[in-house]
């Protein structure tokens, strides 16, 4: 009977994998999206005595019969997506590590890689969903151009004045373990005990903010499709093991007429 359950764990693992692939593929064109990846681990091993030892000798091995597979971890992969040029003043991408900080309506902080920002009715820099980009920078209406340096300082250039005036610095933070961040949906993350507290980044840490660029999703279609084939075929194979175990039980039942 055990082999039936062992094979069933394999089927449910592959199903979880397909679900994850579906989510990755669905977010193929979501700016700043980070793909996640499943990692499987084997389950408990049952120790059984093997054969019998010759008198006076030690048994050479015991049988270790496994009991299947489980999902060990589901981690977000924070590799860079492609950076594409949009020429939009309020589009930003972070090259390398780092997250933009957003102020949520309830006063908490959330983090995002999606730098597709805009202005709200008060002229403040906000995300598409209207969350204030930390530290809350007001863009003056009469400024001619707005430029952002690589370390995130937003500057306004006024007509007839060649010297830019600094308006504030975009806050960019990093985490020791970005994979530990909790995804909220809408491309937002919040800090957890696993991710550790946020660490403010500056240029020494390799901070590079690019204005007029957006980071595309880091999902690789070819990789996902190959993974999907592997998952589907593995699902089929383990289902064959379920079938075979079932067939064996049927044979047992046929024993007693």
């Amino acid at each position, binding site marked *: 009977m055990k082999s039936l359950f062992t094979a069933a764990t394999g089927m449910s693992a592959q199903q979880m994998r397909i679900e994850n692939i579906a989510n990755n593929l669905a977010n193929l064109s979501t700016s700043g999206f980070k793909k996640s990846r499943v990692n499987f681990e084997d389950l408990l091993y049952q120790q059984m005595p*093997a*054969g019998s030892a010759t008198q006076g000798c030690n048994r050479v091995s015991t049988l270790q019969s496994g009991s299947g597979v489980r999902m060990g971890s589901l981690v977000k992969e924070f590799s860079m997506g492609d950076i594409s040029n949009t020429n939009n003043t309020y589009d930003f991408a972070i090259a390398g590590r780092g997250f933009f900080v957003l102020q949520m309506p309830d006063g908490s902080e959330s983090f995002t890689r999606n730098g597709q920002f805009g202005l709200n009715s008060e002229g403040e820099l906000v995300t598409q969903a209207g969350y204030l980009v930390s530290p809350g920078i007001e863009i003056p209406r009469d400024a001619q151009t707005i430029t952002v340096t690589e370390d995130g300082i937003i500057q306004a250039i006024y007509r007839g004045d060649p010297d830019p005036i600094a308006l504030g610095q975009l806050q960019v933070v990093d985490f020791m373990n970005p994979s530990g961040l909790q995804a909220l949906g809408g491309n937002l993350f919040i800090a957890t005990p696993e991710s*550790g507290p946020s660490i403010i980044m500056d240029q020494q840490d390799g901070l590079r903010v690019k204005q007029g660029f957006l980071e595309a999703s880091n999902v690789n279609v070819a990789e996902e499709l190959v993974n999907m084939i592997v998952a589907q075929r593995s699902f089929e*194979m*383990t289902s064959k*093991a379920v079938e075979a175990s079932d067939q064996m039980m049927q044979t047992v039942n046929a*024993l007693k007429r």
Partner: protein
Amino acid sequence: MSRDIYPALTGASATWQQMNYISNNLANATTNGFKSKRVAFENHRQVPGILGDSFAMLGKEKTDETDGTFQQDGVDTHFAIGGKGYFAVEGAGGEVLLMRSGFFQFDRQGFLVNSQGEKVLAEGGGYIKFLREEPVFNVTKDGRILDDAGGERARFMILHSTDVEPLMGSRYRASQTQDVVDQVEVVQGAIESSNANPFREMVEMMQATRYFESFQKAMATSAELDQKLNQSAKRS
């Protein structure tokens, strides 16, 4: 009662157990670093002679130690070992556990850990740490972690043992380990996939079900013979 039903029964029950090995290999066909196992049947002869009864049982298991395919994914905290050897992690109570899967990540303190949060060990028993002042995490083929200047700041502990016991979570417990870091190749940005061979498992599965049927036939025939015997005794 004839005794010939029992040898067939032992064969059937050993095949039944073998089936679980096949299921486990197939279930772990996509588990990183998994090594497939197979079992050998052993013959136990109780009574010598031409028609001596012999009994079958699972005698020995063998772990296939060949490398699985290396899948490049470019993640700098993923590692694969080419050759015979295991990564060492610190389990509960300071016990050193071995791992073949190098699916690691940094925890909130910056230590390199596995998915259970157990710290990966460096040579000499230290840990491997991510330093914020050296954001590029570079590991050479011989397992050295380089600093910005190209010097070595730590080296992976790579152990080998011939006597490993699998634990849950793709880890192994081993006795009598030896340091083999100079004999293996550490590949950064790749993950070793499972070495389960689906073709072989399928064929073994077909074989197991067919054997099982034959054992059932043998048992049924033996039971039938007994029945015939009983009937003839009644008639006389």
